[in-house]
């Protein structure tokens, strides 16, 4: 178990640093194990430095930088051990438009291996999707599902049905 953990850790660490540099277009990030001695008990420590900034504690990162750092780690884990499907629930909410575009590009890179289901309020993320589901609550308290074409997005968001499923 110990050998497996350290092997996985080394792989994820390499991917994390690569993916972080793509999502942040530079900078550097690394993973290390807190020096508890026994790798099976140690904590995983993240260090991250956005481009041009000094290395500081990750608690000083901004809301958007924190979200992008966490997403870098998640993508690194998926790369190390692809999970058949992934569900993201509004993880793009703290990101500005430029970072949403980088996030979406990364999704496209992973879509060969992994199927993504993404809940989002952000139009840029919706536009990248291969298929869309609209959830409406036309009748208060009762949820229904409608198939949606990119053109109908405004209707669904205003709780007007498009076509019965």
């Amino acid at each position, binding site marked *: *178990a110990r050998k*497996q*953990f350290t092997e*996985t*850790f080394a792989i*994820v660490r390499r991917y994390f640093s690569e993916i972080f540099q793509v999502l942040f277009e530079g900078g550097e990030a690394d993973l290390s194990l807190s020096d508890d001695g026994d790798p099976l008990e*140690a*904590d*995983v420590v*993240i260090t991250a430095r956005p481009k041009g900034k000094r290395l500081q504690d990750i608690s000083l990162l901004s809301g958007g930088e*924190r979200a992008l750092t*966490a*997403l870098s*780690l*998640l993508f690194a*884990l*998926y790369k190390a*051990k692809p*999970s*058949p*499907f*992934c*569900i993201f*629930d*509004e*993880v793009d*909410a*703290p990101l500005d438009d430029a970072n949403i575009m980088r996030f979406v590009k990364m*999704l496209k890179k992973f*879509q060969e291996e992994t*199927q*993504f*289901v*993404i*809940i*989002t*309020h952000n139009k840029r993320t*919706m536009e*990248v*999707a*291969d*298929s*869309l*589901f*609209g*959830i*409406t*609550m036309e*009748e*208060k*308290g*009762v*949820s229904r*599902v409608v198939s*949606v074409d990119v053109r109908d*997005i405004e209707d*669904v*968001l205003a*709780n007007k049905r498009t076509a019965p*499923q």
Partner: protein
Amino acid sequence: MSLSKLELIGFKSFMSPVTLDFREGITAILGPNGCGKTNIVDAVRWVLGEQSARQLRGTKMENVIFNGTQMHKPLGCAVVNMTVDNARGVFPLDYSEITITRKVYRSGISEYFINKSPCRLKDIKELFADTGTGSHSYAVIEQEMIEYVLNDAHGERRHMFEEAS
């Protein structure tokens, strides 16, 4: 393996049965606040064996059964069917498609099925064990997860690494 179908019957705000047919690639789910999007994420966590009502934002497991609206009475049970395709033989069964089912009545007792034959929760957990898609896995990500990954107050990070090993 990929997610091919999800059916919700009487689960949370989904009073009448709904079906979501998934395709490969990226699927976006959209809709106004409170329409039932995160309830779909809860349905996936639940059918994969989630045991904590709190993780599903409730206080007791019956909170997942449609609780009625001002116009409709509460229902007596909730069912979720999840169908995954097994074309690549990820699962040790000879089927090309596998459907797992979870049912709960107001009494609180859950029943589990694999391809319509009754089984135990343990069988479902074992089925998904090595695929990285358990109910607590890094495959189902809500927005608060971003904070967990960065704060790491209870060793969530280590847990993700162990899942990937």
